[in-house]
């Protein structure tokens, strides 16, 4: 199904200028159940050039779904119905599988949350990285192995020549994530997506892995799209951030701006919950995230928003640039 063209151009975009590295406009993704179609992403907008963009939101906000949509790896029964995903000027939605295959791993790569299970348990890590290399370039077996070992070494894996022959289960969580990053970056992609790369790891290991990510992305000159529910992680590693709630972008802006002075009520609630109050309690947002099928064409946060008005319950807010470099989707700010 051919995605419909944009109705409203994202702010700052002028036809004819150099295309951004990644540009998602009005992306809608639905899940087709036997009874009805449920919207999971209801008009996501984001863009990124050669920088580090964070995507933050609670579980169910659609962060991983967005990543899957970019790579064309949506689960069965889930498909995009509207909007566009442009990568280096090229429309990704609707591309045939064969072309997507040449983009994945080569132009856009991804690392997932649990690295050990994301790797084939029955072949050595070196072999797996080398295989990715060979799949996209025509190098020989030995050359690809050498590059794999070099990559592992550059990611901080000691004794890489021997460790390359080891199997994924022989690596700890943090080390395995380095392997995954190695496989993702071996072909020098322009964009690395990291989907909750540190969730589930020990705090000290988390810091290490984030360092490895930022360092290797800087070294290879790739852009980074970091997905996390942890605002702390986002703060430490990204330049800009996108705040997602129930499949809709609530706010986009520079990370330090959004965190220090959030404009969208949801973001404000999120940021407030980061720091405990003076008496030690945490101020959480009352209510719960609504089920996707209960949200119609409205602002999904209306049920919990302190500023909610009638308009919020019937009309979806669009992103507006309220301050230079900070876009907010809200009717009431």
């Amino acid at each position, binding site marked *: 199904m051919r995605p419909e063209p944009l109705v409203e151009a994202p702010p700052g975009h002028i036809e004819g200028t150099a295309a951004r590295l990644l540009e998602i406009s009005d992306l809608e993704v639905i*899940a087709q*159940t036997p*009874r*009805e179609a*449920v919207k*999971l992403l209801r008009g996501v907008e984001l863009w990124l050039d050669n920088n580090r963009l964070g995507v933050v939101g609670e*579980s*169910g906000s*659609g*962060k*991983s*779904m967005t990543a*899957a949509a970019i790579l064309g*790896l*949506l*689960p*069965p029964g*889930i498909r995009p119905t509207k909007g566009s995903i442009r990568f280096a000027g090229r429309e990704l939605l609707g591309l045939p599988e064969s072309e997507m295959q040449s983009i994945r791993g080569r132009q856009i790569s991804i690392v997932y949350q649990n690295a050990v299970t994301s790797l084939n348990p029955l072949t050595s890590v070196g072999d797996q990285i080398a295989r990715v290399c060979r799949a996209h370039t025509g190098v020989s077996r030995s050359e690809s192995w050498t590059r794999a070992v070099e990559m592992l070494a550059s990611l901080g894996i000691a004794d890489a020549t021997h460790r390359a022959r080891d199997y994924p289960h022989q690596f700890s969580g943090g080390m395995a994530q380095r392997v995954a990053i190695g496989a993702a970056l071996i072909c020098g992609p322009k964009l690395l997506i990291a989907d909750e790369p540190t969730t589930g790891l020990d705090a000290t290991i988390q810091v290490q892995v984030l360092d490895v990510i930022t360092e290797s992305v800087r070294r290879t000159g790739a852009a980074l799209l970091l997905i996390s529910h942890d605002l702390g992680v986002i703060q430490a590693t990204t330049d800009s951030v996108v705040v997602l709630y129930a499949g809709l972008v609530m706010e986009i802006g520079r990370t330090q701006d959004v965190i220090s002075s959030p404009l969208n009520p949801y973001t404000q609630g999120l940021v407030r919950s980061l720091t405990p109050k003076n008496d030690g309690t945490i101020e959480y947002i009352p209510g719960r995230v609504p*089920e*996707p*099928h209960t949200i119609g064409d409205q602002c999904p946060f209306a049920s919990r928003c302190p500023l909610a008005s009638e308009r919020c319950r019937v009309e979806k807010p669009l992103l507006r640039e309220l301050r230079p470099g900070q876009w907010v989707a809200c009717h009431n700010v």
Partner: protein
Amino acid sequence: MQADIVSVAQLPPELPPVRPLGQVGQLWSYRRQFFNGYWLVLGVFVLVALLAPVLAPYDPVRSDLAHQLLPPSWQHWFGTDIYGMDIYSRILWATRTDFTIALIGVLIAVAVGVPLGALSGYLGGFADDALSRLSEMIQAIPLFLFALMVFAALGNSSRVLVGVVALVNAPIFLKLTRSVVLPLRGADFIAAARCAGLSPIQVVIRHILPNALAPVSSQFSISCAYAIQITAGLSFLGFGVPIPYPEWGSMIQEGASRIIYGEWWTSVFPGLAVLIAVLGFGGVGRQIHKMYAS
């Protein structure tokens, strides 16, 4: 080759079904889901077994050498065998034989296997090890050879056949019950019951075994399917039910030598009966499993 194989974090939750008539409506949809052709097939067989004397047009054991080996016709729907007996009638009567042997055999297996399995799971330790080893040993011996051995030791009769069926299925029920009981051993509600003064046996019977009811029922049906295959196979080899007593397996054996002459009806029809009965029991067993799995 298309396989969409990404598992992404959140898929939308199951939407609640529409229930126009409340409980009645639920039962109706339940029925469509779980009660299907397999139950019907089994029901037909049970009816046939009960009504065989009424339904069978001919005497199943009366030989009539004037009408040997007649192909299927209006007088003899399934034809006649080498002794001139009507195959259709014999198949109907054989339903009784096969089903009786299978049901009794499996019932004995349950009566032996379930308590032993509960014991094994609850007591643990040496008893558990010993019983598990015993089950393994019985299951290490290939089925038909084991049966031959038992017939050699105990003689060739239908009682021994029932015993073989029971003996082969008992370890299955033992393992099944054990696997239900074992994880519950340390459960809180068990400790509470013990504190309330219930003896171990009462605890097992009242609180643990009900959990085994569902898997055991499912396995019961599947074991009956297995039992019919064993019965038919052993009778085919000449063990268990004496000729000319109608039994599907021995009927197949009677007709086996005629196949190469093209006289197929003597073996094909009894075999079909076995196949359909086994399919029926197997299907019902799976349906029961689906019922309690949801």
